[in-house]
């Protein structure tokens, strides 16, 4: 029975989702981290009124750090449970990458869904262009997931624990941070989507380039 | 002898130092390579 790459990709994704549903470790730690960080941020801001620029920055800082905390272990779980070899045999590298990428995208989606309402409660904005906000978050998440999946694979293969993932991932993600904050800032200022075209273009091109590069490079990381 | 002449001389001095250092490294490696050829 020959499986198409789509089948294998979905298989990898479903496997990770099932594992997650059982242990809920990744989702749990991502959510907990984001809630803790968000609380710390809003607590330290006290009751001070902060302008939209700073709010946009805070949102993305929390998002980025929660993502870094949650996505670092994407491949480590495989090495720890000894399933690397099985995965290598069962699915072509492209499927492994795409499956993991989609899973990370799912994690980020959950993160966004929880974070935005929470943010609205603790650090509310009076009004906003919610459509633009969503666009920024979705595009940013795609770029985030694309880069971090590849880097997580590199770190897992290097067999390193600790902060190497964050060290490697954060600077590479700076373009997403800058464009995301820009778009979010404009969203909080209720500007139209058209006003954020430079940011959106950056997010789209970054996501596209990173996805393409990751697909091409993943083979080299994954092979032994 | 104004400010800019001082800076110029300082930068030149730094360059001479850097050049000498790199040249010394170059010579050292050449010597090692010759040794290994023997």
């Amino acid at each position, binding site marked *: 029975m020959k499986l198409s790459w789509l089948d294998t990709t979905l298989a990898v994704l479903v496997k990770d989702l099932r594992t997650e549903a059982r242990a809920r470790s990744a989702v749990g730690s991502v959510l907990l981290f984001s809630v803790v960080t968000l609380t710390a941020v809003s607590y330290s801001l006290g009751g001070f009124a902060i302008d939209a620029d700073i709010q946009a920055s805070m949102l993305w800082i929390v998002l980025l750090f929660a993502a870094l905390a949650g996505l670092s272990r994407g491949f480590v779980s495989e090495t720890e449970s000894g399933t690397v070899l099985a995965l290598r045999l069962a699915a072509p590298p492209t499927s492994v990458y795409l499956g993991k990428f989609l899973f990370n995208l799912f994690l980020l989606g959950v993160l966004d869904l929880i974070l935005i309402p929470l943010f609205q409660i603790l650090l509310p904005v009076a009004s906003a262009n919610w459509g633009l906000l969503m666009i920024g978050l979705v595009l940013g998440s795609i770029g985030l997931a694309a880069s971090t999946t590849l880097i997580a694979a590199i770190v897992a293969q*290097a067999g390193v624990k600790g902060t190497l993932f964050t060290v490697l991932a954060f600077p590479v993600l700076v373009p997403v941070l800058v464009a995301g904050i*820009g778009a979010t800032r404009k969203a909080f200022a209720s500007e139209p989507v058209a006003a954020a075209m430079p940011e959106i273009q950056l997010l789209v091109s970054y996501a596209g380039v990173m996805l393409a590069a990751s697909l091409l490079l993943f083979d080299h990381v994954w092979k032994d | 002898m104004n400010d800019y002449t001082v800076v110029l001389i300082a930068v030149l001095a730094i360059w001479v130092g850097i050049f000498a250092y790199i*040249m010394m490294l170059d010579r050292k490696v050449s010597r090692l390579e010759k040794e290994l050829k023997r």
Partner: protein
Amino acid sequence: MRSALKWLLGVATAAFIVAAFTWAPEMYRPNFATGGSDPWPTFRIVFFHVPAAWLCVIAFLVSMIWSIKVLRGYAPEKDDKAMASAQLGQVFAILALISGMLWAWRDWGALWNWDPRQSSVLILTLIYAGYFTLRSSIDDPEKRARLAGVYSILAFITVPFLIFVVPRVMHTLHPSPVIPDAQEKGSMNTDMRVVLYSGVFCYLGLFAWVMSIRTRIEAVRRRLSTR
């Protein structure tokens, strides 16, 4: 590289330095108080600053090229070159940062003013610091070459974003006094350009020279360890 060439490089660079301070014509900037223009001597830092930035990008590009080659087929020399060029890229990046900070300090009194280009170069140094951290955490040479090679390629892919796209986006965030940017090549006359390009040439020569020394050292090291 012939010995004569190296001495020529040394003299040429010295000549370039002198030219940057003396032969290059004075740059002027508008004086809003008097309505005229004042001489702007600190502008001369541009002759050291811009070539450093160019060589930084060139060095990281070279690193990516050798990384691609090493991924195609492993050879220790290829990995050496990828690493050496990344090291030099860091050196030039730091040079660019320092000259930029010096310029900002002399002109504006602040070492850092969040100029998007400056910040991008700082991020670049962080990316490549990660590259070296990654390298140092892997023992097996082939694995190290492979994984670091992938990261080097990933790192360089972000360069166009950081150097070109991000500053454009950030201009809508922080309209900062981008002095080096505004004056860079637009308002330079031909004599200034001559000095600038000779600076690029000299830096390029230095890059090639130090690269060759660095890779020769690694080759020697390897020969010694297998004796």
